[in-house]
C-alpha cells in the first residue's frame, strides 16, 4: 500500500498516445488508468506485457513496468515472469490476432495452467496494425484486404474457446461502457489464476461500428445481456430461460436462469447464445472459480533450502574417487 492514494494520472507515462483518433483503445486506456489506483499497488510493482498490434502498444502509455514483446508470445513471457516473481501484479494486453491467431496456443496453455496473470484481449475483430486483414474473430463473409470476395473462416468464439480450455476466469466487456469495464477489471484483478477479459473494441479505421448493435441506444437493450452472479439473467423485457430439454433460450416469459459463475456448463451455454451476430450478447463474468494456480504450485516445490554444502555434495555425487 502506498501512503498517498494514487490517482489515474499517476499511471500515465510521458509518451504521446499514438492510436488513431477515435480508436476504442483510448477509452480502455482511460478506464485502466482510472482503475489501477484501486489495485493498491505501486506502479513499479505492476507489469504490463503485450504482444504486437495496435492494442499491444498499451504498455507504453502506463507508468508501470512494461514489456512490448513479439507477436502472440505475451502469455508465455508473462508466465515466466509471474512464476518467478510472485510479488508482482502481471497483466497481459493483447488483440484478437495476437491472442487468437498467432498466439492461440500460448493463450489456451496459460488458461489451462491457471497462471496468475490478467489478460485483456482487445477484440476489434480485425488486424489493426497491419492495416485491415480479417482476424479469427471476424464474421464470415468479411471483406478485407486479404479477403476481397469475403472470408470463409468460421470464427472463434473466444469465450467458448477459453471455457473449453478450462479457464478459471472468463469475462467480456465493452470499450464504451467504462463503469462495466472497470467492474470487470476489478473482478479479474482480484481473481487468483489466469483471468481472461474479452473487451469489444472499436477500430474506427478498419472495422468501424463492429459493436454498434451493443452501443446504439435503440438496439443495445435487446442485445446486451448483463451477467451478475446470483442474479436472474434478464435484459430489456426479456430473460434467459431453460427450455424443457435443458437448453438456454431467450424468451419474454418463464423463470429466468440465475447466473452462477461457478457453473462451467452454464457459462458455456451462455457463450453460445450468440455468435458473431451479437444479437444476444452476454457481458460480465461468465466463469469465476477458485482453483490452484500454476505459479503457486510451482513455487511450493521450489525454494532455496539447499546450501553451499548441498551444492558441493551435488557436484561430488555418490561415486567419487580420490587420487593422491
Amino acid at each position: 500500500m502506498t501512503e498517498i492514494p494514487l490517482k489515474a494520472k499517476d499511471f500515465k507515462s510521458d509518451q504521446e498516445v499514438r492510436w488513431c483518433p477515435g480508436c476504442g483503445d483510448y477509452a480502455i486506456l482511460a478506464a485502466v488508468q482510472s482503475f489501477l489506483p484501486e489495485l493498491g499497488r505501486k506502479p513499479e510493482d505492476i507489469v504490463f506485457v503485450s504482444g504486437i498490434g495496435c492494442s499491444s502498444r498499451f504498455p507504453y502509455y502506463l507508468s508501470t513496468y512494461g514489456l512490448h514483446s513479439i507477436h502472440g508470445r505475451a502469455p508465455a513471457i508473462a508466465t515466466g515472469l509471474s512464476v518467478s516473481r510472485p510479488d508482482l501484479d502481471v497483466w497481459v494486453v493483447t488483440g484478437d490476432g495476437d491472442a487468437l491467431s498467432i498466439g492461440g496456443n500460448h493463450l489456451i496453455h496459460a488458461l489451462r495452467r491457471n497462471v496468475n496473470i490478467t489478460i485483456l484481449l482487445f477484440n476489434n475483430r480485425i488486424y489493426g496494425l497491419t492495416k485491415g486483414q480479417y482476424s479469427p474473430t471476424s464474421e464470415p463473409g468479411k471483406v478485407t484486404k486479404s479477403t476481397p470476395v469475403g472470408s470463409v473462416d468460421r470464427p472463434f468464439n473466444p469465450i467458448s474457446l477459453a471455457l473449453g480450455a478450462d479457464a478459471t476466469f472468463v469475462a467480456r466487456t465493452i470499450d464504451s461502457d467504462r463503469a462495466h469495464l472497470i467492474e470487470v477489471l476489478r473482478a479479474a484483478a482480484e481473481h487468483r489464476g489466469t483471468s481472461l477479459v474479452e473487451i469489444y473494441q472499436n477500430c474506427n479505421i478498419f472495422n468501424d461500428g463492429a459493436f454498434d448493435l451493443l452501443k446504439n441506444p435503440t438496439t443495445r437493450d435487446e442485445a446486451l445481456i448483463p451477467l451478475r452472479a446470483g442474479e436472474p439473467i434478464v435484459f430489456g423485457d426479456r430473460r434467459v430461460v431453460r427450455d424443457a430439454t435443458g437448453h438456454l433460450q431467450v424468451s419474454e416469459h418463464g423463470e429466468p436462469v440465475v447466473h452462477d459463475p461457478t457453473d462451467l456448463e452454464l457459462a458455456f451455454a451462455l457463450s453460445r447464445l450468440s455468435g458473431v451476430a451479437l444479437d444476444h450478447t452476454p457481458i460480465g463474468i461468465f466463469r469465476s472459480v477458485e482453483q490452484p494456480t500454476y505459479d503457486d504450485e510451482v513455487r511450493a516445490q521450489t525454494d532455496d533450502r539447499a546450501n553451499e554444502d548441498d551444492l558441493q555434495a551435488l557436484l561430488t555425487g555418490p561415486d567419487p574417487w580420490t587420487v593422491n
Partner: protein
Amino acid sequence: MVTTPSKKTVRLSRVIVRFAGDSGDGMQLTGDRFTWESAANGNDLSTLPDFPAEIRAPQGTLPGVSAFQLHFADHDIVTPGDAPDVLVAMNPAALMASLPLLKPGAEIIVNTDEFSKRNLTKIGLTTSPLDDDTLATFSVRPVPLPSMTVEALAGFGLGKKDAERAKNMFALGLLSWLYHRELDATEHFLNDKFARKPEILKANVAALHAGYNYGDTTEDFVVRYEVAPAPVPAGTYRNISGNLALSYGLIAAARRSALPLFLGSYPITPASDILHELSRHKHFNVTTFQAEDEIAGIGAALGAAYGGALGVTTTSGPGLALKSETIGLAVALELPLLVVDVQRGGPSTGLPTKTEQADLLQALYGRNGESPVAVVAPKSPSDCFDAAIEAVRIAVTYRTPVLLLSDGYLANGQEPWAIPDLADLPTLNPGFATEPNGPDGEFLPFLRDPETLARPWAIPGTPGLAHRVGGIEKADRTGNISYDPDNHDTMVRLRQAKIDGIDVPDLEVDDPDGDADLLVIGWGSTYGPITAGVRRVRKEGKKVAQAHLRHLSPMPKNTGEVLRSYRKVLVPEMNLGQLALLLRGRFLVDAVGFNQVRGLPFTAPQMQDVINEMLEGV
C-alpha cells in the same frame, strides 16, 4: 579375492571395450559400472553410449542394438576410442553391428545362447557367424551367459526369466576378473539400487561373482590384463556426462551470482536430460517450466530474466530454429539469457540421437536483422560445466543472450572430472540497477556502461526505475521507440560493438617447439579426436600446432594473428565447413576444412591421416 596364480597378467597401456546387446540387456548400466571400476582403478577414461533411435526397437534386430564404449588408459586420453579391443556381444545383432568397428584380432566375448536360427533370421543370416569363418581374424570367447547365470543362481528361488536378467552382471564379473578389478564398489552400488528388492539384489551379486569366478577357472581365459593408473593430478574425481556437467554448471553459476535459476524448456533429444536434471534440484532455487513448445520455453525464460532471474532455455537444432524470433527479441531487449543448443544431426528432424556440429551458423546468424549474440562451445563432457559458467558470466555481465553449443556426443559421453571446490568458483554480481542514472534524475534504461556497453538491468519492483522496453528500435539512452535513421544505425552498431567487445581470453596455441607449419583449429566436441590425432602425428616425430576455439562470438582478439602465423590451417568439423567459412571470411586465411557429417565423432586415426595429408602438402 584370491585368483588362480597360474594365469598370467599382461600389462597394457590402454584398452577400448564395447558392450553391445539388446535395448533390454542392460548394456548402459554394465558399461557405466565398468567405467566406474576403471576410474576407481585410477585410469583415465572416456565413454560413449550408442543408443538405438527407437524407444524399444524389436528385440534382436540391428536397429535395436544398444551399445556402450569405454576407453581407459594409463595416460591422459581424450576420446572414447576408435576400434575396440574387446567386444562383449549379447546376441547376433550386437555382434554383427559391432564387427566392422573392431580392431583386427580383437577379443570377442560372445553370448552363444542367443544364436538360435530364429535370432539369426531376424538379422538376415542363414548360418551362424560362430560356425563359419566370419570371426576368423578375431579371438572369440564363447560364453553361454544366460545359461551360466541361471546355473549360478540355482537355488535362489528365481524364475528362469528373472535369473537370466542378471546375465549382464555375470558379464561384468567376467570383465572385472579379466582386468583385475575389485567388485566391492559394484556390490555397494547394487545394494543401493536393489535395496528394496532383496532377491534381485542377491541374484545380481551372485551373478557378478559367478562371472568373476568363471574367468578365474575356465580354460578359455588364460591371460589377464592390467592397465596401470594414469598419472592424473591429485584430487577428487567423478565421472560426468556433458548434460550433467552442463546442468551443474548452470546451478553453480546461478548460486555464485545469487540469482534464481529459471529454466523454460521443451523436451527434445539430446537436450531433455538437462531439463530432467534441473527439475531434480528445485531446492537450489531452481524453477523448471516444461513449456507447451520451444517458443514458450524461451519466452518464459526471457520473462523470468526480465524479472531478475537467470533465464535459461535448453533445446536442440529444430528447437533452436523455433526460438529464433524470441532470441531476436532478447537481443533487442538486451537482457541476459542463456540458450543451450545440444546439437544433433540435421537438417530438419535429421538424426535425433546422433551428434553433429552444424548449428554454428544458425546460432550466429539465424535471426532477422543484425542480431548479434555471444556464442560459447564446450570441448569435452566435463568442460560443459565450465562453459556453462562462462556463458552465464557473459550473459549477466553484458546483458545479452548467449548461445551455448553442446552436441550429442558431449551430452552423453562421460569422462572423469576433477570435482571443483565451490570456493574456487568465480562469483558474479548481477548488479541490478537500483537508482536513476540520468543527468536529471530520470532513469535511462539504455544508458550503457562505458566499459562493457551493457545497459542497466532494472527489474520490476524497483521504485523509480519503471520503464517500457520492446522489440521496436529504441532510442539510444532513453529506450523510447525511435524511427530515427541515425539512431537505428547507432543502435545496430552499439549492439554489435557490445558483443565484439566482450572480454574473452586469448586463443592458446599448443605448439611445443613454436615452429610448426600447420595449425589445426577446431571448436566444440572435436577437441578430443583432434587432440588424439595431433598426439599421434607428433609421436611420428612431426610438428603440428593445435588451437581450439571456445568462444565463437566474439572470437579471441588474437585469433587472426594466430591463424596468420601458420602456413597452413586445417579446420576439422562435423559439418560442411562452417567455422572454416568464418575464419576465412574474417581473417582472409586459406583455412582448409576437413568435413564429415556422419553423425559420429571423428576418430583419432582419421585426424592423424588428415593432418599427415596436410603436412605432406606443406
